[in-house]
């Protein structure tokens, strides 16, 4: 038993070392295009895993992720932008007082973005989580639309429909993947704790869970608030990566992308969300090819705008109709599994030779 634990520890250290090495090399030598895809995949992982906590593990179908992302993106940008940059951006109506003069380091703005988003998550979740199924989905969607409308109109806080432009690029691989790994670690531990068992019991049968003494309200709100926290941080990272924040980009289309990641990866599987989150970021770029004109063997094929999202919608429908479990179902990767795979292949190799 002890030897095995030691093996896992070695495995963990080796994996962490490899990941850090990869990030180090990638950040140094990859070109901007690939770095952007890698950053985006890290952000999609954060968003996918956090939505999976609410939709997959707790079984409360939320459509409000884009709203929390918008809150995070704006809250952090208002803190990390320099006062001069704010003055340039807010030329219609000046920014209200405390935000117009302060500037804090990126890390604090991220934490604030997460906390504010979590706070709003609590305010929304506490009354709304009484509702079930479709109704909860509608209310959370309504919430994210209200956020979008507010951010479009509050000229002196969010700069209205003009959005924010020319943001400094703080997001790099260390931030996006560092926080992605932290998110995976945090939510994995949460799911495997007694809290996680309570969340899963709520998903399976609310009445039975309550009869067993699970505090429904507390646990539902907990998962909602944690999900909102990471969604806020994901939104903040996205804003700084894209260098611009447009209130209308946080509409239903954004939530839909995260929903695709969670459903295709498997409701209730962190590993699934991680794999599909990375694949989604890559496919979004690769499939750009079908939207731009192609020239194959002298045959000119005009680009078809909108084709990418059509392909993703068809993919989602196929998964929903024929593979309801998604890619991973509720299965996970674990250190045990990885260890087993590695040792088995080694033994087999030895036997083979």
């Amino acid at each position, binding site marked *: 038993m002890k030897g095995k634990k030691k093996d896992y520890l070695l495995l963990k250290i080796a994996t962490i070392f490899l990941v850090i090495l990869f990030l180090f090399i990638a950040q140094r030598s990859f070109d901007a295009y690939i770095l952007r895809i890698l950053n985006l995949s890290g952000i999609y992982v954060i968003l996918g895993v956090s939505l999976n906590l609410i939709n997959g593990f707790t079984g409360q179908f939320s459509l409000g992720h884009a709203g929390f992302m918008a809150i995070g993106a704006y809250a952090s940008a208002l803190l990390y932008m320099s006062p001069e940059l704010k003055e340039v951006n807010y030329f219609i109506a000046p920014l209200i007082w405390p935000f117009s003069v302060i500037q804090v380091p990126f890390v604090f703005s991220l934490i604030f973005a997460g906390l504010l988003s979590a706070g709003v998550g609590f305010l929304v979740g506490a009354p709304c989580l009484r509702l079930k199924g479709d*109704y909860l989905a509608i209310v959370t969607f309504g919430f994210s639309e209200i956020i979008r409308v*507010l951010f479009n109109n509050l000229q002196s806080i969010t700069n209205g429909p003009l959005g924010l432009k020319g943001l400094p690029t703080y997001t790099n691989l260390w931030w996006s993947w560092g926080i992605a790994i932290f998110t995976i670690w945090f939510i994995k531990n949460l799911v495997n704790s007694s809290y996680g068992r309570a969340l899963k019991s709520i998903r399976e049968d609310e009445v039975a869970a309550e009869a067993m003494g699970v505090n429904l309200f507390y646990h539902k709100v907990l998962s909602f608030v944690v999900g909102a926290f990471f969604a806020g941080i994901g939104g903040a990272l996205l804003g700084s990566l894209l260098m611009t924040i447009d209130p209308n980009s946080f509409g239903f289309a954004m939530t839909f992308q995260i929903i695709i990641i969670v459903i295709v990866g498997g409701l209730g599987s962190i590993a699934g969300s991680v794999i599909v989150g990375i694949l989604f970021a890559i496919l979004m770029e690769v499939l750009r090819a079908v939207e731009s004109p192609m020239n194959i063997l002298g045959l000119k094929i005009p680009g078809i705008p909108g084709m990418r999202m059509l392909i993703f919608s*068809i993919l989602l*429908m196929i998964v929903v109709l024929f593979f309801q479990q998604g890619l991973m179902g509720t299965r996970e990767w674990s250190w045990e599994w990885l260890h087993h795979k590695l040792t088995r292949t080694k033994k087999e190799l030895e036997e083979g030779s």
Partner: protein
Amino acid sequence: MSLSIFFQNLINAISLGFLFALIAIGYTMVYGVLRLINFAHGDIFMMAAFFVFYTMTIFSLPWGIACLVAIVLTMLLGLSVERVAYRPLRNAPRISSLCSAIGVSFLLENFAVVVFGGRPKSFYCPEFFTKTFILGGVRVLGINFVTPLVSIVFLSLLSYLVYRTKNGLAMRAISKDFDTARLMGINIDRTISFTFMIGSGLAAVGAILWASRYPQIWPFMGVFPGWRAFTAAIIGGIGSIRGAMVGGFLVGFISIMLVAFLPELAGYKDAFIFIALILVLLFKPEGLFGEE
């Protein structure tokens, strides 16, 4: 604000209210039989407008016939959406059909972007619709006469269908108790298909009237009318046809009167509608006329 302008807005609001009622009934009827919120309804509405547009431009049919063809095509579309996306999941967990509904909605929108193009197209409508009439100082658009009339005709047809025919009885039985209705020998599949056809047909009528009112059609035109009509259905009590009509009027009034009387809040219009939706769901989830 003079009295004539008030009446002008009032007529606008009534006409818009009828439109929302027509669309809201599609949500309500589907929810009644399937306990499913048909997220794709707004996009079926959008497809109907494009059906009119393309039957007119490709087959150069006159407007009236194009409308009839479009209504039939939309009914078939509603039928096939149910067959393909909802029927296989009828016994699956509720979340699956919810995902499927959201997926169909996005599929139709993106299909429209790819096939019809994302740029708005102008929609033909008879001259009478856009003519302005002056009645005692009140300016009224032709469409504001047409919309209530057409809506009243279709809503009376619908009430006849639901309350006076065997199919309507089957629909009401299913919405009361799905399993018992099946045991009583009601053909569930056929009745559900029928419900989808009626709902989509009314959405098509709504779409034609809507596109004549705001004569531009584009792939996302169904999103906001869809959500407002959905809000109307919830406020009135989902599952209740009378409720859908009352809710439709309320939402129509909020949309028009807010812009007319408090123009500085006009930008927040959708926020008010969604706040109303959330409040109703939280405090009176059965709506004004819904069943307990």
